[in-house]
């Protein structure tokens, strides 16, 4: 029997700067930036906040706080739903892009890259409007001064999986995964022991194991329970410790391995994974050791390397894959995962085309040696930040890519297409089709709903099941469809 499809998506908060010294309010800049987003199918489309409840946690507690509920004017300024089913919006003081829901890690790479295109296109529109470069955007996780912003992965997990098992079995994976998907950082923040360069951007900021909130005392395991699906069936695991990546291979491995490990945990089939004694300590210690040495203290004594820990997860996933043929690009995830662990074992600095922290380290190291500069020089920090600049003419990752020095997985033409077309195998397709076909007649959207102006009223179409509304299922609804009223009629007739 084929495996149940995987379901995942990512959220990226971008750093934003403005070259006009008079315009330094991040919220204003973020609002203006998203306001410049071109090619919006429905510029006045609202986000439907009815389904949002970030105050509920996986243990059933409701935290104190106010739920978001902006008035329509603010809603339209904040939210720019995308025709590819994704969400561009302003979260706090950052522009944020969420990919549409996807079933495959290669699609995740594609749709994340599409988001970078959309953000950069918005930046270019602002430049055109002002006649000179105006905004700068970074796909990274820190300003180097103790302020961090997140990259979040989301994976659908059946409600029946005990949360305690998830906490126990996932945390060692989360603290060690950075060895192949850390984005690298010059220096340290938040009072951590000084090193010239570390593997993870985010490790400095994690201070608790299990928590609901995401902005202070950040937890390795976040307990937000907001499935955007039937809560009786599903949890949406909201994973916050990973870095945002420029390298597509790093992104591919990061999310692909997470989804696979969660599936194995779901089956209670994880075995041979070392018990990590102090995961928070390990998270930071691993980040600050570029030799990938035995920094992981184990329960009962002894130490392991982060590669050892990752290998244990890999072996469990390989055993699982032996019994359950993996779909889509997942076999490639497994193959590359093993390949990269072998490479890191032989020489931690050898994956110089695939792993962001290695690419960045080698670039900065070579430059500093050439110029006879130390690691704590401002130039090093400048290169660190500019590695993540979305502008292809300015970003150092993009400079390396243009010279063929990094490996990519998705050709530019496919990235362009992913900016315009939703994935076909999740409810994102239905959402994207409504936006593409009905444009201004779409009153609002969310992950779990589409609101259409139909006749004299507004009709709310729930899209609670992430696996319905796919092209395979919903295409007939749109064939020869005359408009929103027609679609609503067809749905009511049992479409």
């Amino acid at each position, binding site marked *: 029997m084929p495996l149940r499809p995987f379901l995942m998506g990512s959220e990226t908060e971008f750093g934003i700067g403005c070259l006009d010294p008079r315009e330094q309010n991040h919220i204003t800049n973020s609002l203006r930036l998203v306001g410049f987003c071109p090619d919006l199918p429905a510029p006045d489309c609202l986000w439907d906040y009815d389904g949002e409840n970030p105050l509920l946690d996986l243990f059933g507690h409701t935290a104190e706080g106010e739920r978001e509920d902006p008035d329509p004017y603010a809603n339209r300024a904040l939210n720019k739903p995308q025709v590819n089913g994704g969400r561009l919006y302003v979260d706090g*003081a950052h522009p944020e892009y969420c990919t549409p829901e996807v079933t495959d890690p290669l699609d995740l790479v594609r749709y994340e890259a599409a988001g970078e295109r959309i953000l950069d296109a918005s930046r270019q529109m602002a430049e055109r409007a002002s006649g000179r470069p105006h905004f700068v955007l970074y796909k990274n996780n820190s300003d180097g*001064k103790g302020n961090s912003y997140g990259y979040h992965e989301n994976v659908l997990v059946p409600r029946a999986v005990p949360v305690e098992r998830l906490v126990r079995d996932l945390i060692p994976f989360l603290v060690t995964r950075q060895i192949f998907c850390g984005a690298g950082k010059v220096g340290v923040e938040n009072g951590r022991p000084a090193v010239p360069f570390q593997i993870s951007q985010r490790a400095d900021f994690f201070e608790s194991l299990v928590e609901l909130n995401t902005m202070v005392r950040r937890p390795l395991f976040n307990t937000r329970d907001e499935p955007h699906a039937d809560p009786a069936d599903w949890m949406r695991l909201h994973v916050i410790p990973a870095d945002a990546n420029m390298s597509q291979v790093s992104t591919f491995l990061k999310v692909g391995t997470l989804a696979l490990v969660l599936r194995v945990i779901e089956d209670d089939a994880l075995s041979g994974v070392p018990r990590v004694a102090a995961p928070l300590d390990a998270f930071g210690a691993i980040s600050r050791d570029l030799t990938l040495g035995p920094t992981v203290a184990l329960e009962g004594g002894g130490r392991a390397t982060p590669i050892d820990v990752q290998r244990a997860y890999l072996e469990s996933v390989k055993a699982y894959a032996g019994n359950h043929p993996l779909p*889509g*690009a997942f076999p490639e995830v497994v193959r590359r995962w093993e390949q990269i662990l072998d490479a890191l074992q032989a020489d931690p600095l050898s994956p110089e085309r695939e792993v962001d922290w290695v690419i960045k380290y080698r670039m900065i190291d*070579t430059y500093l040696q050439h110029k006879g500069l130390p690691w704590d020089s401002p130039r090093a920090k400048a290169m660190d930040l500019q590695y993540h600049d979305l502008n292809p003419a300015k970003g150092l990752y993009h400079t*390396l*890519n243009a010279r*063929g020095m990094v490996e990519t997985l998705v050709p530019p033409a496919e990235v362009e297409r992913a900016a315009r077309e939703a994935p076909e195998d999740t409810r994102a397709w239905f959402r994207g089709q409504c936006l593409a076909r009905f444009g201004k007649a779409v009153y609002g959207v969310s992950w779990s709903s589409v609101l259409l102006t139909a006749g004299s009223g507004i009709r709310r179409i729930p899209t609670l099941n992430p696996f319905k509304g796919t092209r395979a299922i919903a295409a007939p609804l749109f064939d020869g469809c005359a408009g929103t009223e027609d679609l609503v009629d067809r749905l009511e007739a049992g479409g």
Partner: protein
Amino acid sequence: MAQKKTTKPTPSKEAEKESQAEAPPEKSTVTEKGKELAEDLDKLMDEIDDVLEKNAEEFVKNYVQKGGE
């Protein structure tokens, strides 16, 4: 199936094939690749200087964000 490399092969790939016949594979491949990459990076130095903001250090000093999620 993941898309294979879309970038053109770097010179290191050809050099790799030649060196494999002569020396113990793993070590010389890593060294050879390392050398090729170092040459690529050397050429990159000028380009980085061009690309970095003239006032890069100043910009980084002024780059402050609000904490996010």
